[in-house]
């Protein structure tokens, strides 16, 4: 592998409090040095990065890659390529595939497929319960030894408080977090946020309380067990308030929020727009406000996309019958820059922290830093480049996004995984 010198880029690495114009040298898959006037090895590829941002590689803790089971919708390879195109050097794949990732072989399959794809890293998340049926714990030890970085029954809530308690306790043996999709199954059954808009559209609602009840339960169980609870895709102000209090009490909780919950409200469903149908649902402007605040102050730790591909015509349906979910890998960074950084809600360093450094810490993953000697997972992007979201150009096999046609800023130039360029803009 040739050494790579990124010359004169704006190196932003919140893990070191770094934000300066500098060179970055990558050698033998590792960050070899940051600074001006680094010695350039003879065989190095030199890239002029002036005007671009050089940051630790983005990490997405929450994606659905659909393989095995729905390879027509997404595969590990297509998902890993989409991730690389979106500036992600690593993603964590949720286990709700068919069959469920609830055993060593299934985890090993994902690792093998990801290696073959040679794009972004794919870390498997194992199931909490066998078949995600919510009854019997999966073999966490086997899952972890095969490569799983966390456990979750995402896609389905863990209805049984007893099972959640056991998972939080037992997972501590392996030092992995338990990630929960918080939704009280007896309060759900709706198709969008319950409020004025659902009333007008005559659509069944999912109240904020459906999420908040489970958030409260999980926090209490984390307190009881001293386990690490990771709360997926938080969507309500109430959830944020609960997490903030729990963190103050020292409960080991981390939480994520999606780009769409930071940007859109339930009004996106008007006109029965099935691309705005997701679970948890898009909530109100007050919730969006609270989520942005929580992301800023660290109550919510990370941005995760909940990338959920669906077949091209799956959303061409009545709102009731359309599946939940939206893809996000190839729009997350640009949406973050356009909707959060440019309006001054987050600094660029904060955005990079929430999309790279913090996720690495939360799931204890390599990367998330450009400290010399660490693995060279690096994202290079042009923060000023303006483009229009065109799902037809996505690397993902799916097209289900509510952001089609949006004008955004921030284009990924290079994605480097372990020192190897896995995506280069315009290189295909």
């Amino acid at each position: 592998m040739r050494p790579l010198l990124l010359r004169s880029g704006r190196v932003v690495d919140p893990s070191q409090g770094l934000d300066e114009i500098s060179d970055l040298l990558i050698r033998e898959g590792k960050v070899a040095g940051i600074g001006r006037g680094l010695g350039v090895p003879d065989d190095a590829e030199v890239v002029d990065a002036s005007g671009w941002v050089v940051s630790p590689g983005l990490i997405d803790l929450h994606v659905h890659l659909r393989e095995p089971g729905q390879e027509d919708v997404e595969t590990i390879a297509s998902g890993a390529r989409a991730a690389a195109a979106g500036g992600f050097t690593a993603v964590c794949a949720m286990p709700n595939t068919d069959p469920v990732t609830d055993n060593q072989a299934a985890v090993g399959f994902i690792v093998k497929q990801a290696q073959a794809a040679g794009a972004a890293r794919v870390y498997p998340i194992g199931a909490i319960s066998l078949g995600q049926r919510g009854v019997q714990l999966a073999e966490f030890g086997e899952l972890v030894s095969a490569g799983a970085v966390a456990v979750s029954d995402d896609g389905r809530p863990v209805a049984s408080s007893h099972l959640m308690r056991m998972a939080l306790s037992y997972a501590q043996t392996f030092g992995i977090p338990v990630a929960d999709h918080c939704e009280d199954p007896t309060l759900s059954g709706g198709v969008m946020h319950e409020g004025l808009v659902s009333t007008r559209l005559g659509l069944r609602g999912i109240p904020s309380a459906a999420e908040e009840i489970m958030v409260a339960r999980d926090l209490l169980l984390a307190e009881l067990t001293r386990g690490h609870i990771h709360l997926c895709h938080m969507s309500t102000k109430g959830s944020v308030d609960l997490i903030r209090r729990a963190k103050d009490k020292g409960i080991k909780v981390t939480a994520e929020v999606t780009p769409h919950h930071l940007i859109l409200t339930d009004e996106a469903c008007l006109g029965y727009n099935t691309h705005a149908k997701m679970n948890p649902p898009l909530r109100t402007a007050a919730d969006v406000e609270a989520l942005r605040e929580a992301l800023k102050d660290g109550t919510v730790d990370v941005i995760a996309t909940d990338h959920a591909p669906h077949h091209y015509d799956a959303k061409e349906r009545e709102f009731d019958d359309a599946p939940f979910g939206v893809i996000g890998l190839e729009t997350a960074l640009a949406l973050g820059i356009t909707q959060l950084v440019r309006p001054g809600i987050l600094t660029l360093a904060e955005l990079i922290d929430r999309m790279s450094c913090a996720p690495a810490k939360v799931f204890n993953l390599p990367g998330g830093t450009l400290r010399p000697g660490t693995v060279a997972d690096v994202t290079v992007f042009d923060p000023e480049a303006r483009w229009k979201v065109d799902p037809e150009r996505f690397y993902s096999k799916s097209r289900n996004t509510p952001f089609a046609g949006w004008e955004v800023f921030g284009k990924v130039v290079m994605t480097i995984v372990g020192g190897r360029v896995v995506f280069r803009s315009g290189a295909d």
Partner: protein
Amino acid sequence: MSERSLGKDLLGLESLTAEQITLILDTAEPFKEVSERPIKKVPTLRGKTIVNLFFEASTRTRISFEFAEKRLSADTVNVAALGSSVQKGETLVDTARNLEAMRIDMVVIRHPSSGAAQFLAERIRSNVVNAGDGTHEHPTQALLDLLTLRDKFGRIAGLKVCICGDVLHSRVARSNIWGLLKLGAEVAVCGPPSLMPLGIEELGVTVFRRIEDAIQWADVLNVLRLQLERMHAGFIPSLREYYRVFGVTVERLERAPKDLVILHPGPMNRGVEIDSRVADGPHSVILHQVTNGVAVRMAVLYLLAGGRPELAEAAKGKGEVAE
């Protein structure tokens, strides 16, 4: 969209202006008389093909539409979801494409999913009339309610109308709320809070907790049908208790300060939401509603069939050049 026309489709009253609603009601007036003729048929829509696409069981709405279509001389085909390709897993998109390929002029659609009528309207060139979509809207029902009230009171503006019952699951309630508010009525709702949608007050309606209070206030009660399955889903304890607490009974009406007019979209559950003696009594205009239903639907079909409002405008500009 010109206020003198409806545009391509009738999907709901939320999207209509007061002028458009009034236009439909005014157009319905002469159609009442057509149904009184010895030959209850005019050739207005001769040669037009209308498909009644019913994905949900409905007897009275379908019959009412069918009468309206036949009295306008349209050719009609009824497609019921049962036994059609829908049962074989055909999607609404496929159904729409097939209808389009058969060159039909209009579709009247009843569907259990909110938004299904709009979904169809956005995908086919034919006119689409919403005959009830999920718990969203049922515009022709509200229009016939409005026509009935206008017949009875001579006006809508200023009337106090309370919609009683399962507002949460009612498309009739939603369409009525929009129509009544746009025409200047005061609107209230009354029913168990467990059957009230969130944010209903924000639409501009008053909420009554007790049916007695609603009766004191209202000129008109529009009594919604209570779906019997609501009890099993835990929204109310029992039908018996519902009748005891929220039933519109003669005894309750007798305590009203004035004579109330009672509407009901049908079919009625006698002894659940309404007392038989009320349904059959002098307050009730329920059969008048049924008669007006045909006239209103004729008006809607007639207005949509013209289909080319820009030409209608031009024709008006010409003055009366034709004889």
